[in-house]
């Protein structure tokens, strides 16, 4: 559970670890019934619609206004988005 929370970048308190842990276990038990379903002969659905090759032409379209973009930033500096230091291991 801690590992999953780390992957999802969610800080959990000890209580939450226990609580979500047991809820997750309950949910997994619930979805476990899928095991009974024989899916040997079916392929996975990626989309229900059968479209293929949906692409766009290589045309330039208008961008957002820079000032508006940065106005929404929690912290901006000289036109950049500012974030606290990145520890290399956080990659």
């Amino acid at each position: 559970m801690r590992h999953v929370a780390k992957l999802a970048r969610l800080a959990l308190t000890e209580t939450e670890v226990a609580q979500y842990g047991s809820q997750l276990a309950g949910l997994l038990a619930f979805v476990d019934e899928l095991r009974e379903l024989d899916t040997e002969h079916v392929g996975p659905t990626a989309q229900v619609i059968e479209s293929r090759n949906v692409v766009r032409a290589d045309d330039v379209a208008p961008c957002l206004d820079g000032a508006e973009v940065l106005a929404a930033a929690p912290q901006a500096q000289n036109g950049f988005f500012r974030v606290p230091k990145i520890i290399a291991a956080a990659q």
Partner: protein
Amino acid sequence: MAGADDILACTAREIAHAVNARERSAVEVASAVSGTVAGRDRGLGAYLTLTPQLMLAQAQRVDERVAAGESLPLAGVPVAIKDNMCLRGTRTTCGSRMLEGWTAPYTATAVERLLEAGALPIGKTNMDEFAMGSSCENSALGITRNPYDRERVPGGSSGGSAAAVGAGLATIALGSDTGGSIREPAAFCNVVGFKPTYGRVSRYGLVAFASSLDQIGPFARTVEDAALTYDAIAGHDRRDATSVDRPLETTAAALRRDLRGLRVGIVKEFATADLGAAIDRCYARAYADLAALGAELVEVELPTAKYGLATYYLIAPAECSSNLARFDGVRYGLRVAGADVGEMYEQTRALGFGPEVKRRILIGTYALSSGYYDAYYVKAQKARTAIADDFKAAFAHCDLIASPAASAPAFTFNAKSDPVAMYLMDYYTIPVSLAGLPSLSVPCGAVVPDGGTRPMPLGLQLASPLFTERLLLGAAHAYERHTRHAEKLVPA
């Protein structure tokens, strides 16, 4: 205002007709509605944000266009918009602390089309956080109450939109449906709620929950109004790669008087005997009404439908765990300061997301993680194919499938504290969503719930094959006109 009552009692068709004929002005509508909604919403909580200035500005534009000779399908129709759809210049919160202060710099395609058709935006409605929930109780920003019993939930996740229409605080509304989030609250609030075929309405500007399932659709008091709204918003959009490029059949002009010549499938696995005597009787009567309209009732089987919930609760969380990763405090929305970026991410997301969202992110991350991907995610996608195949097979024997929209009417607040109990509310709607089918809920009666005193509405779910919206809405209209159940209940 007297004018407001008149207006809000009208259908969208009536309002549009009056405005296009210049019997009423859109500005008149806007002023009347804006003036009353705030007050009347106070005990209901359907709206998170009201947009009176935008509504007025839009109304002025509509009047100008009508004066210039245009005829707009939804001219002057007041509409409520679920708060997970971007509307430029307005707060778009998704019912979450994460976006509590965020203003959208662009407008969703479906909303754009609605406005282009002449509709007037009243405001943004409350919802379960990031569209995850079946009662609207998961909203971090407010409570919405069921207009027919204020001690009960309006359903979810589009609870605010359903309640607004159900309470007469909007003529039509937009909601979104992933596993039942339009159909279930429509059933709970005594209104029509319609989810089109996946891909019919653009998702551009709809904050994503589960990308392969999300669809935008209308709430209305009549099927005809829902059809009018659908016609205005549906169709291919270049900005959404999953939006289908197929010819659109308009639906509002093809509504049926009866169901002669149609076969309606009653699903063996969805038998209502276990739902309690009153509910069972209600659906038996609904099916009988369908037959009375000339439909041939046929029993069909959906053997894999019972795996729908498990399938859905692996696929939807998996997709959402990835879709919600963008909420990290870097570019917009909530940020909780941290000593380093990692801490900022973790604390921002811990504070910004509520428990249901966290639950689903956790299980979704787990289902995709190394070692579990095949057993969970891929397996669920295969189960999904099996379910879709079952529907295809069933539709060889019928034109429409009828079932309950939910297993019970609206429950009281905090009644479903166990997550899995809540998930069961979508038992009938989820398999339909997994197959991408067009589907709606139309009021089909009412029962007094256990422990309750007032009759609460029930909804009949109708589903049809992919891309057959005209058939579906046409049939639903016939049922609605014949039974007129919604009119028999009065909001509290």
